[in-house]
């Protein structure tokens, strides 16, 4: 058995893998000790929390909502008519929630800009997103029902025309 094969058996990957990871961990330690100076516990909590925020908080939350929207008897022909606008609206809130929910008390004092209005604008954007989705649904229904409407018109015309 060659040395490289023995190494792979014991380690599970090539020596290059180990060297690259060790180089990265050394850089992490160099920057990490500086990152942790000061409020070490707070920073560590934020770091690990940031790693888990999506996977253990956001994902279960939006997955449950998405499943709920697909329950049998849901009123829409495709869940995407509600999924897409809800996703975009939720995304805007996720990024801009401190301003939308007025969590930044010193915003006006600092910038000279009005703190109100973010919530209203986010709600109006949300309304526009759902309205656009509704319009899309209407247009698609109209197109889908085209053949049936043309057939009905033809029947009416045929009935009304004396032979």
């Amino acid at each position: 058995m060659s040395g490289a094969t023995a190494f792979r058996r014991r380690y599970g990957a090539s020596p290059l893998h180990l060297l690259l990871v060790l180089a990265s961990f050394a850089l992490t330690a160099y920057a990490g000790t500086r990152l942790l100076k000061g409020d070490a516990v707070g920073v560590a909590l934020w770091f690990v929390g940031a790693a888990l925020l999506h996977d253990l908080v956001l994902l279960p939350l939006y997955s449950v909502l998405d499943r709920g929207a697909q329950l049998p008897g849901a009123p829409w022909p495709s869940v995407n008519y509600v999924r897409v606008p809800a996703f975009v609206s939720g995304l805007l809130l996720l990024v801009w929630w401190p301003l939308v929910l007025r969590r930044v008390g010193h915003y006006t004092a600092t910038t000279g800009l009005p703190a109100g209005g973010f919530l209203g604008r986010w709600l109006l954007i949300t309304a526009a997103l759902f309205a656009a989705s509704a319009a899309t649904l209407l247009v698609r229904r109209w197109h889908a029902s085209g053949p049936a409407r043309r057939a009905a018109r033809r029947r009416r015309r045929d009935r009304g025309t004396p032979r």
Partner: protein
Amino acid sequence: MEANDGEQGRPAPTARPRPGPAARLLAAPPPGPARPQFWRSPLRGPWLTAVFGLVLLVGVTLLFLTGLLSYAAYNPDLAPVNDQTPGKGWLGFYLFSWPTSPHWLYRLTQGVHVVVGVVLVPVLLAKLWSVIPKLFEWPPVRSVSHGIERLSLLLLVGGAGFEFVTGILNVQLHYIFPGSFYTLHFYGAWVFIGAFVVHVAFRLPRAVRAVRAPGARPAAGTPEAAGLVSPRPAAATVSRRGAVAMVGLGSLALFVVTAGQSVGGWWRHTALLAPHGRDPGSGPNGFQINKTAASVGIRPSDIGPAWRLTVRGPGRQVVLTREELLAMEQNEAALPIACVEGWSTPDQLWSGVRLTALAALVGLGTDAPQVLVESVQRGGSFSSVALRDNQVRDHRSLLAVRVNGAVLSPDHGYPARVIVPGAPGVNNTKWVTRLTFGEPV
């Protein structure tokens, strides 16, 4: 890998030993997310993960480079007063003199940094969604290399989240993170980028293969499926392309409600949710304010008739009243204000006295040295700043007293403020009271 892998060298037993309870647990995942069939989306697979991964590869590289530029733009190696991270050590290895041309340089690099960061949020979330089965993969650690790689992934995902969250909170002035933004965001970036480079090195070939074969749908459990494909997929409610389009729509929406604050003019009104999407007023002084006079404790008496400008040079000192400053030759420069928070203003027409002319007052010619600029502001970051000689010598660098034809408003630094081409906004010190030319003693 067999459970008795570590027993090499011993004679092989003739009969297979009965696996112990620990081995049985490792062989079969417990009910729940560790079982591959728990994850039912038919969308997950190498192609989707690779698409999001490649977008992030380009985007994160851009974020890292513009972030390094922003760090250099503060000239942290010039003077301790400029340096928010004095313990940086070798992480400042690349620092260089920040140029003054083009005058919109920082406006561009930092606008790109913040806009790209915001726009990448849905891509990052989608990438994490696409690989969620791997978080719960069973057994949790298969080999030494696998364990090490998972530790590196914690640094990757934690680092990405940490950088995005601190950045997005900081641009909204929501300072709830545990420390100074500059320290956290700078060192956090270096922790993140180490894990990022490793991840790209390990995964890029596989990602490129996956996007080159968009039609291939590897079967669950095969090596090509990479643990991402569901063995029990639910009926599709959206196509893979549809999912990518939805994420792209999210990025587009974020771009539309954000980017205008980095463009200004009419476009600012499109930045419906960005922190600097409105104008604080109208008229010559109606452009964006970083910090108002009241918010940093500037009192009317600080900037009233008793205000004086002290200009110091080697062995000489001159004290000027505002009238004496106005009596000096006035020059004009059209320059923007560009903030680390990503917002900026279009060029404003400033007028005032050239920094070289003030250096000449204390006997320094056109080869003026660096200058320490001090504000009447008491304490706080950037109440004093050192400007490098190339910044002092640029003929557009002014101690401005007027803007757009009007006297500076208190919020824009009355009676006098510095304006330097290409520099970050906070280097354009407001309410200036003292200029000290030359190397600090």
